[in-house]
């Protein structure tokens, strides 16, 4: 069953001071099945964030439409959780209150809220940090909290925009395993944007490759690596084959994108 359907979605940003308008996203169609983990891979500036922001309802499309569970998306809502590339924890709230934010906004009773916070603190390995403020945490811990904050709200779909982009390689790898572990347990439908090929393959049940600007989907690759996925899968021949293939696809786009600048 399709969770998310995108039909001929496009976004053109008006030109700045009489300049050429920016075609950030060419008409794009896409269907994401329930419980799928879809990663979107593309060079910088190809419109990945634009696509995700449209799905989140933070931006309005120039044309086309988005359906979530068959209902059209008209604005932001708690049914689409989002994790941003920048650190967006609320600095005035403790880690526990950050995780509880969405539940509170939706009027969930305090007792239930506390239970959810307790659970998520455990899942992201941050027990003992509930009274800390975001500034007192490392980047990796902050992004883990941001993921917990979005998931505690139990959205229909989770959108992640290069959430690990600012982290070092080791932390990044650990975060990928954590997120994949959560998905293997909950099978939450996920749309995950990245420009890291290994990350895209390791996490996904399906990788979409976007072309250089103006962005559109140029390849759709299923990833059949077994679950539960261990990090050692990254050295397997199947993984290498996928990586080689996607590297080819993305290289052509990166060359195009570079030529443009």
């Amino acid at each position: 069953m399709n969770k998310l359907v995108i039909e001929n979605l496009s976004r053109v940003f008006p030109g700045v001071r009489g300049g050429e308008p920016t075609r950030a996203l060419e008409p794009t169609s896409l269907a994401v099945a329930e419980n799928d983990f879809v990663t979107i891979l593309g060079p910088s500036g190809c419109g990945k964030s634009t696509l995700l922001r449209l799905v989140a309802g933070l931006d309005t499309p120039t044309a086309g439409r988005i359906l979530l569970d068959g209902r059209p998306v008209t604005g932001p809502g708690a049914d689409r959780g989002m994790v941003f590339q920048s650190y967006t924890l609320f600095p005035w709230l403790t880690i526990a209150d950050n995780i509880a934010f969405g539940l509170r906004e939706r009027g969930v009773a305090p007792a239930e809220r506390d239970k959810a916070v307790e659970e998520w603190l455990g899942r992201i390995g941050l027990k003992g940090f509930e009274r800390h403020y975001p500034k007192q945490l490392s980047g990796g811990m902050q992004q883990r909290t941001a993921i917990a904050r979005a998931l505690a709200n139990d959205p229909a779909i989770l959108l992640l925009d290069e959430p690990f982009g600012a982290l070092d390689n080791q932390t990044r790898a650990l975060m990928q395993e954590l997120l994949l572990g959560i998905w293997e347990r909950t099978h939450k439908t996920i749309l995950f944007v990245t420009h890291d090929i290994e990350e895209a393959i390791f996490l996904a049940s399906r990788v979409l490759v976007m072309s250089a600007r103006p962005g559109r989907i140029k390849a759709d690759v299923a990833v059949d690596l077994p679950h539960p996925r261990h990090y050692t899968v990254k050295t397997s021949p199947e993984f290498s084959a996928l990586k080689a293939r996607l590297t080819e696809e993305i290289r052509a786009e990166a060359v195009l994108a570079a030529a443009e600048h």
Partner: protein
Amino acid sequence: MTPLAPVSNSARVLLGISFFVLFIALWALATLGGFVSKTFLADPLTMLADGWSLLTQHGFLTDIGVTIWRVVGGFVLAALVAVPLGILMGTFKPIEALLEPFVSFARYLPASAFIPLLILWAGIGEMQKLLVIFIGSVFQIILMVAVTVGSVRRDLVEAAVTLGARNRGIVLRVLIPSSAPAVAEILRLVLGWAWTYVIVAELIGSSSGIGHMIIDSQALLATGQMIFGIIVIGVIGLISDFLFKAANRRLFPWSLA
């Protein structure tokens, strides 16, 4: 000295005090050394003696109390009106479009120039003094709060919206807490300005307050009293600043950590 390198707490206090000492030493040298005539500038010792007699014999403590009450009263009234208005303006762009031009204009109306008019309207009682401070502070606070609230990080608002927050939640639980430390800073700043308005208000048509004492002393050429009055204002300002900063550290630990 390395650029931006921090200085230890004890060194900070020591350096801060040493400049006061230097200042007073230069003042003492100029007056006690006979470089400046006593008629124009009293020396520190005379100033202290005059101040003591002001406090003990002329009821200057009452004047200080009256002035503090006026500043705090006018300032609190201004803050009660201006902070909510500023938040509304920063949050909702149509309200900003409606009020911003007028507030920007009103901000430049000098509060002291209103004094004759206010005396006409409100007499020379307490109301008039409060109004001077109110007019002097309210537009400044509105504008600065509006700018602060309007520049809250967009991505925080977007995060809140994707978590299900609606208008009320965004204002109460994102915009306000996020800008609270900056708003407290604005209030601290404007309270400092309010002190200059109150003294001006007391210089004209007043029978009590620090400003009134200063203008009375002028008739007597009592420069020692005048300087004592000015220094008292400075000391009170320093204390209120200190209290404000301490309160901010208490209320907003997250903004420092």
